[in-house]
């Protein structure tokens, strides 16, 4: 079966997940993103690539950063951006997801940026568009359930490459609530596809998916041990709102064992970088001294995210 994200010529048609994408496509996205970073320094921060195209931001789940950066990216490409506030829209009156998509397609949509609590919702939309003969409409997954958040994974890779130049000699640790994290899944697939020789996950047994090592990662339950000599520390947000039952004794207890402090960071390499996809829970998964410290590249991640999303949108629109 053909990868549902690719055209028959092997070009990117939708971006739904990093899992299964060849290294050449990931590298092409990162290479394409680089010249977009320079646009932010111009008098006119706009390129004509998506002129006359309509991009619909379909956020069925709350988000500030991701929705805003997608909106900025689309606007810098001269697209018309329509933000649908789903809480006040037809869905809350009972319209199905695919009916919403059909109606927006009838309004000449060119691209859907979708965030949904249900894993697979963006794929369902892409499949539906193909069945309706609407292959010219592109879908970007902006986070679906616990499944994937591919643009976050890509901007993280861009950030790592920016600071570390290469992937093939790095040790990278992903720390915290991997179980509930679509970001972690996208990061793991991206890191292994790009050839990072050692990817570690660090967290309590209750917050790591069973058999996570089958994704090609080393598992650590002791944070100091897991951080030993790493080049990159990727913190995850403790997903309070997704926490069901008693997975954790308390956020304070979590901070004691798995919160990133300057002291624990000493175990990593002296030039290690610290990343976080945001929003941060200061004092829960990361100490303020680290979040605002010299190793943190958390704000550059946000800036690079705009260029990476511009690159993805341009590549889809040109496919």
């Amino acid at each position, binding site marked *: 079966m053909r990868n549902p994200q690719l055209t028959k010529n092997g*070009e990117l048609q939708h971006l739904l997940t990093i899992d299964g994408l060849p290294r050449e496509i990931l590298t*092409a996205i990162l*290479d*394409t993103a*680089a*010249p977009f*970073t*320079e646009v932010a320094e*111009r*008098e*006119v921060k*706009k*390129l*004509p*690539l998506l002129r006359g195209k309509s991009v619909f931001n379909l956020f069925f789940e709350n988000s500030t950063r991701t929705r805003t950066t997608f909106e900025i990216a689309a606007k810098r490409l001269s697209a018309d951006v329509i933000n649908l506030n789903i809480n006040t829209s037809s869905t809350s009156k009972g319209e199905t997801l695919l009916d919403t998509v059909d109606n927006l397609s009838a309004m000449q949509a060119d691209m859907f940026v979708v965030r949904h609590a249900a894993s697979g919702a963006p794929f369902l939309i892409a499949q539906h568009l193909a069945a309706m003969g609407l292959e010219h409409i592109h879908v970007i997954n902006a986070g679906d359930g616990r499944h994937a958040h591919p643009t976050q994974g890509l901007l993280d890779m861009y950030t790592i490459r920016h600071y570390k130049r290469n992937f093939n000699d790095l040790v990278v640790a992903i720390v915290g609530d991997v179980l509930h994290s679509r970001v972690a899944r996208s990061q793991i697939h991206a890191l292994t596809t790009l050839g990072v020789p050692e990817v570690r996950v660090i967290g309590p047994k209750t917050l790591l998916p069973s058999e996570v090592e089958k994704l090609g990662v080393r598992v650590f339950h002791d944070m100091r041990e897991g951080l030993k000599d790493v080049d990159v520390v990727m913190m995850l947000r403790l997903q309070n709102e997704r926490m069901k039952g008693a997975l954790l004794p308390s956020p304070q207890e979590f901070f004691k064992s798995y919160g990133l402090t300057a002291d624990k960071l000493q175990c990593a390499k002296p030039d290690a970088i610290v990343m976080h996809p945001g929003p941060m829970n200061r004092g829960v998964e990361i100490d303020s001294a680290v979040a605002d410290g010299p190793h943190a590249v958390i704000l550059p991640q946000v800036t690079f995210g705009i260029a990476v999303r511009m690159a993805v949108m*341009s*590549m889809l*629109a*040109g*496919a």
Partner: protein
Amino acid sequence: MQLPDAEGLCAALAERLRPGLHPDTALVGIHTGGVWVAERLHAALGLKTALGRLDVSFYRDDFSRSGLHPQLKSSDIPFEVEERPIVIVDDVLYTGRTIRAAMNEIFDYGRPARIDLAVLIDRGGRELPVCPRWTGEILQVEPGKNLQLERGEGNKLTLRLIDA
């Protein structure tokens, strides 16, 4: 077909530009061949303003047909564009569409005092009202052929004719 010597043409083109330059003039080369020519001109003319480089891929008019080219370069305009005389430099002038894209891109950095065009080879076949102020040489090249500037050993520039 006998092709002219590219290095000799660069030197001749520099001499043609010299009388028309203003002290603030900036050269902007178009990736990739145009940048090589602009580097030669910049050195020969001893210009004080740093060299600009453009990759016009984001401004091309065939994006919706052929998408983005895989090997994008960053544009780099290391000077204030506002009120400055600018010379766009390219290797081979053909349809004029690349020059249109380059002018659009320059205007996104500011309003230049004027824009002129210098090209190593004018091969005819224009599809837009674009006319160079300085030309190394006019060559009649039949449609279906690509005239390319290449950089070989010791950074030596040569022209080559290939099938499109």
